[in-house]
């Protein structure tokens, strides 16, 4: 099961379809882009030249911003953010225990079937549940519904019954260990056959369990999962996009999607860096499959660059570039507004809206992938140790529209959330709008970079075998 290719192709189709839809909307005439075709053909059959597709993507983001600038009524914007409806869960404690038990059972099942289950990836419950059920399906639930990871997290449930050494976590490190952890996890995912070989996946899960449980025992469960664990942090941040969230008093309430992105939820630059890291890792996955990377990797190796440091180097340099552009924007915003608010504060406040963009790309990547794996998921749960051929659901062509809605919806939500945040920080309405210029430029840069990557032909990753 080629986990990388499938989402990338799905995203290429989504983008193809997005451009086709835009072209129809703009030019009101049919175009030749085949949104529904499968495989690499989706890229070659794109009748719109790349430069035009990139500019259309950038123009959509820019136009969304221009439209948002017409909303300058503070009371309406405040209402969007503050509207809440309480939801009461029946028997929350029992639910929490059930969720924790379910999580632990799933973890045990994944490790056992990973080691002894069928080696065919589509029949192996570990592979299907981790990639289809968890990284695609569960991750989608965290931003579409609400973050239930603290309840389901099996490592948290196990760590709760383990002793707690309560060593002090070095606060100066902040979120940086989790940034490094996220980059490392995605690097492992890209360079190793995690989606094809259940044994490798099981070893990775065990290794992650050892690190996580050791960390939770040494530093305490709360501290570890709040500060250092990258997985918990990803789901918590995604949860800020979701319509269901926790209030200050711990009660669940229903809000507008993305409303929580406008609150001052990040502690510092380090946490803003984690948001940028989430965006970057989705891009990295596609970037290393482009011919551009193949050429760059070959040239670097010919110049004597060590092969082992190719992928980690690309990971760190690319992340540095994404973060650098973002921090630069938060400095420039001080001039365009103009304001004396420190650039660190601006970087912190305007990072959460980017999570909506990341969630939008996640939908485009994984919704079709998840649905196609539903029969395999059912088989994994009902017949965990049998080699079956569950088949894949072929999603219909119009389904690309849902992926476009994800990408566009994520961008609209991000622009609106940043707009509302600016109105909260700045006293002047025009000042708030002008403070957004550099951040909108950054969003256009991220969008065009992602679009460029999905339009490149997919090539095998160099120097991995």
């Amino acid at each position, binding site marked *: 099961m080629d986990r990388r290719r499938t989402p990338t192709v799905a995203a290429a189709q989504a983008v193809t379809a997005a451009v086709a839809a*835009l*072209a129809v909307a*703009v*030019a009101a*005439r049919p*175009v030749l882009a085949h949104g529904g075709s499968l495989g690499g053909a989706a890229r070659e059959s794109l009748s*719109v*030249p790349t430069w*035009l597709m990139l*500019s*259309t993507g950038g*123009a959509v983001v*820019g*136009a969304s911003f*221009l*439209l948002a*600038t*017409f909303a*300058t009524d*503070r009371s309406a914007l*405040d209402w969007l*953010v*503050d509207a809440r409806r309480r939801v009461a869960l029946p028997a929350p404690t029992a639910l929490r225990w059930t969720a924790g038990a379910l999580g632990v059972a799933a973890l045990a099942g994944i490790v056992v079937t990973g080691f002894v289950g069928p080696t065919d990836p589509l029949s192996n419950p570990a592979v299907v549940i981790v990639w289809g059920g968890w990284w695609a399906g569960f991750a989608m639930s965290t931003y579409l519904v609400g973050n239930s990871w603290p309840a389901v997290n099996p490592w948290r449930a196990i760590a709760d019954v383990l002793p707690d050494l309560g060593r002090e976590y070095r606060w100066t490190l902040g979120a940086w260990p989790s940034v490094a952890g996220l980059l490392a996890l995605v690097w492992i995912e890209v360079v190793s056959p995690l989606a094809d070989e259940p044994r490798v996946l099981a070893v990775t899960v065990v290794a992650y369990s050892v690190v996580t449980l050791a960390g939770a025992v040494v530093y305490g469960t709360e501290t570890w999962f709040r500060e250092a664990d990258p997985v918990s942090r990803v789901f918590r941040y995604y949860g800020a996009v979701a319509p269901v969230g926790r209030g200050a008093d711990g009660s669940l309430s229903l809000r507008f999607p993305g409303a929580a992105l406008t609150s*001052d939820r990040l502690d510092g630059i380090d946490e803003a860096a984690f948001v940028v890291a989430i965006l970057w890792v989705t891009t990295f996955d596609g970037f290393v499959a482009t011919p551009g990377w193949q050429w760059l990797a070959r040239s670097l190796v010919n110049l004597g660059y060590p092969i082992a440091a190719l992928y980690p180097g690309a990971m760190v340099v690319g992340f540095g570039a994404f973060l650098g552009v973002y921090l630069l924007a938060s400095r420039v915003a*001080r001039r365009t507004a*103009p*304001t*004396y*608010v*420190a*650039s*660190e*504060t601006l970087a912190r406040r305007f990072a959460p809206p980017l999570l909506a963009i990341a969630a939008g790309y996640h939908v485009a990547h994984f919704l079709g992938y998840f649905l196609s794996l539903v029969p395999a998921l059912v088989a994994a749960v009902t017949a965990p140790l049998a080699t079956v051929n569950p088949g894949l659901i072929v999603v219909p062509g119009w389904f690309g529209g849902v992926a476009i809605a994800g990408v566009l919806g994520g961008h609209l939500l991000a622009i609106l959330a940043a707009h509302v945040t600016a109105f*909260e*920080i700045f*006293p*002047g*309405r*025009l*000042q708030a*709008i002008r403070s957004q210029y550099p951040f909108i430029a950054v969003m256009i840069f991220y969008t065009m970079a992602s679009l460029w990557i999905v339009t490149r032909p997919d090539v095998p990753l160099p120097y991995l075998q």
Partner: protein
Amino acid sequence: MTETPPTDPAGASAGSGGPSANAGDPDTAYDVPPDAAPVECEYCGRPFASEGLLALHRGRAHESTLTDDQRSAYEAAYEAESGQLQRFRLKALALLVLLYFGLLMVYAVV
């Protein structure tokens, strides 16, 4: 870099005008360049680049404690900003039309 946190005199908390008016927000850091001449809010010490922005801030964050002069300054600044906003909207609309028809033309040709 000189960090100027809000000095937060006694009047700051009394004057906050609503949940979104984060005048005395302790988490917002300020960074005034050494060669700048900021005008500071007399209620919460927040620095601003111009009198107009300060007047807008006072009207929004310290509404209940405004003097008559400050209130009229706020209203004047708000009016002036509304005029600028009108012009901005016209430009934004022009840009949107340009984008739309520009892309339309390009898609027709390519």
